[in-house]
C-alpha cells in the first residue's frame, strides 16, 4: 500500500538522525568559522614568513587605540540609526496607505517587491549614476532647486556622502518594511477597530492606541531583522564611495574588509569582525528584552 511504503522513511523515533544534517551544516559553516575567527584574533599574518604568528592580545590593544575603528563605529551607528528610522516610518506610512482594497493597490503591493530582487551592489551602481555631479538626475534636480552646490558633488563631499549612500539603502529596503507591516496589518482582528470607532476614537487615536500596540511584535521583528542587516553595511559604501571622501563613509564592515584583504592583516580583520558580531549580539539582546510585548 502507498501509505505503508511512505511510512518506511519515517520509522526512526530517535531525534538524532533528524538533527544530524542541520547540526553538520551549523558546525561547518557557523561554529567552526566562529571559533577560527576567535583563534585568528590572537594571531597575525606575517607576510615575510608567510605564516600566522601568535601575538597574544596585541590585536585587541591595537583596536582599543585605533581612532579609525572608533570613527567607523560612529559612522556605522549613524547609518544604522538614520536608515532604521526612515525605513520604519516610511514603511509604516506606505503600508497603511496600501492596506485597503482600493483599485490598483494589489498591483502596487506586487511592484514593491521589485526593489528587493535587485542585488544591493547594483542598486549602489544605480544611485552612483543618479548622484553623479555631471549627468545624475538626483544631482540635477537638487542643483536646479538650489539645494546642491555644483562644486560639491554629493558623494565626494564629506558632509553629504553618507546621506547619498543612505538614499540608496532606504530606497531598496523600505519596501521590505512595507511588506512585513502589510502582512501584520492584514492579520489584525477587525473587532477592536469597530469597537474603537464606536468609542469615538479618531483615525489618529485608533492608529496610536490600537494599531501601533497590536503591531508592536511585528515592528520589533522588523527592527531586529533590518537592524542586524544595517549594522553590517558594506555593499553600498563599497560600490558608491569606497568609504570616502576621507573616511567619512567607512563602515565597520568595510574597515574590517580593508584590513583583512587590502592590508593582509588577517588577525586584526578578524578582531574587527568579532567586535562587530559582539556589538550586534548585545544590541539585539537588549532590544529583545526591552521590546518584549506582553499581550
Amino acid at each position, binding site marked *: 500500500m502507498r501509505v505503508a511504503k511512505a511510512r518506511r522513511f519515517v520509522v526512526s523515533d530517535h531525534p538524532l538522525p533528524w538533527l544530524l544534517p542541520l547540526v553538520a551544516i551549523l558546525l561547518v559553516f557557523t561554529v567552526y568559522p566562529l571559533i577560527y575567527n576567535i583563534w585568528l584574533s590572537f594571531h597575525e599574518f606575517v607576510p615575510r614568513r608567510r605564516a600566522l604568528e601568535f601575538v597574544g592580545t596585541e590585536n585587541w590593544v591595537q583596536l582599543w587605540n585605533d581612532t579609525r575603528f572608533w570613527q567607523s563605529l560612529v559612522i556605522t551607528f549613524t547609518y544604522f540609526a538614520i536608515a532604521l528610522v526612515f525605513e520604519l516610518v516610511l514603511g509604516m506610512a506606505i503600508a497603511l496607505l496600501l492596506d485597503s482594497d482600493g483599485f490598483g493597490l494589489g498591483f502596487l503591493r506586487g511592484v514593491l517587491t521589485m526593489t528587493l530582487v535587485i542585488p544591493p551592489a547594483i542598486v549602489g551602481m544605480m544611485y552612483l549614476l543618479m548622484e553623479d555631479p555631471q549627468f545624475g538626475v538626483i544631482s540635477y534636480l537638487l542643483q536646479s532647486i538650489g539645494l546642491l552646490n555644483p562644486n560639491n558633488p554629493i558623494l565626494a563631499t564629506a558632509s553629504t556622502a553618507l546621506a547619498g549612500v543612505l538614499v540608496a539603502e532606504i530606497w531598496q529596503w523600505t519596501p521590505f518594511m512595507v511588506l512585513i507591516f502589510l502582512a501584520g496589518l492584514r492579520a489584525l*482582528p477587525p*473587532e*477592536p477597530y*469597530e*469597537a*474603537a*470607532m*464606536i*468609542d*469615538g*476614537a*479618531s483615525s489618529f*487615536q485608533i492608529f496610536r*492606541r*490600537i494599531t501601533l*500596540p*497590536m503591531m*508592536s511584535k511585528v515592528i520589533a521583528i522588523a527592527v531586529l531583522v533590518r537592524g542586524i542587516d544595517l549594522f553590517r553595511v558594506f555593499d553600498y559604501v563599497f560600490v558608491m564611495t569606497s568609504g570616502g571622501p576621507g573616511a567619512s563613509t567607512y563602515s565597520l564592515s568595510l574597515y574590517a574588509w580593508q584590513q583583512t584583504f587590502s592590508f593582509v592583516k588577517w588577525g586584526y580583520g578578524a578582531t574587527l569582525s568579532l567586535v562587530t558580531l559582539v556589538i550586534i549580539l548585545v544590541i539585539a539582546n537588549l532590544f529583545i528584552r526591552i521590546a518584549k510585548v*506582553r*499581550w
Partner: protein
Amino acid sequence: MATVEYRNIAKNFGHVEVMKDVSFGIADREFVVLLGPSGCGKTTLLRMTAGLESVTNGDLLIGDRRVNDVHPRDRDIAMVFQNYALYPTMKVFDNIGFSLEVAKVPKAEIRKKVEWAAEILNLTPYLGRYPKELSGGQRQRVAMGRAMVRNAAVFLFDEPLSNLDAKLRTHMRVEIRQLHNRLGTTTIYVTHDQIEAMTMADKIVLMHAGRIMQIGTPDEVYERPNSKYVADFIGSPSMNFIAGAVETAGGSPHFVAEGVSIGLSPEIKAKPGQKVIMGVRPHDLGISDAGEIKGEVVLSETTGADVQIHLRVAGYDAVAVVPRDERRNAGAAINLSVLPGKVHLFDAATELRVA
C-alpha cells in the same frame, strides 16, 4: 436618551438582498430585543444601527437625526460585541475608560467613572489585568463596563451572552436588565435565545429571513403569535401543530382532524370548512379523564419540576408538559384536554393567525 426609528430599511450584500422593507420604532428608554434564528438579519440590522454596515435603502433615525451617513463615532451609541472586541493591548481600566480618554475627559473623572462601573460589575480587582488574563464572564463584564461609562444615547448588544455558560448567562441576564432599569438607556439587544428575549425585553421584534414577523411584548408574542412561524419559534418545547379544518357540529364550531375533534369558542373567526392548522402549547395540555384528545404515551422526560410527555395522538406526534406527580409510563393510554382559550388557529395556506 433617544428614540430609534427604522423606515423601510433594506440591505444588500452585493446582489444578495438580505433585508427588505424593515420599519419599526423604538421608544426612549425602551429595551427592545431583536430575536430570530441565525441568518435572519438581526445582527445586520444592529450593525447598521451602529454604522458598521451601510444602509442600502431607507432611513435610519436616532433621536430626530437621520444617521445613514453618520460615522459610528458621531452616532452617540455604545455597543457590546458578541466576542467582546476588547482592546488586547490595554488593561481593563483603559479598556473601560478608552471612550472617555479619546473624548479628552479629565483623568480624575475617568478614574471616577471607571471605578464606578467596575464596582457595579464586580471588576474592581481586575482593573490592572489584560483581557487575555480574564475569564469569559469577566471579559463580558468589561465589554459592558465600556458601554456603561459612555452615557450614550443608545446601547447596542450583539448576542453578548452567547459565549457564557448557562449559569453565568442567567446571572448576566438579570444584571443587564437591572442595569437598564438603573440607567434607563434605550437598548437594542440581539439574540437567538428566546428565553433571553422573553425575560429581558419590553418589546420583542421577531425576524425571519430579513423580514419582521411580529412586534410585541413578550406576552403578546407568546399568547397571540400572529403566524405559525412565530408560534413555532417562541416557546419551549415547541407548540404542537395539527392540520385540519373548522367544522360546525351541534351548532358550535369545532376543529376537526383525523381522530381529533376539539370544541372552539363561539367567537371564532374561521369560516366553517376553512382549512386550518391548530396549535396548542405543551403547557396548555392537561391530563383529564374527560379529555377530548386520546393518545398513547411514547416517552416521559423529567426536566425537574415538570414532566414532558411525548405522545402519539391519532397518527400525530405531540408533547405535553405536566407537573411531575402526573408522570405516566410509556405505553399508557392518556386523555388530554386543552385549557380553555388556549387554542391557536392558523390558516393552512397563509399560516397567519385566524383566532
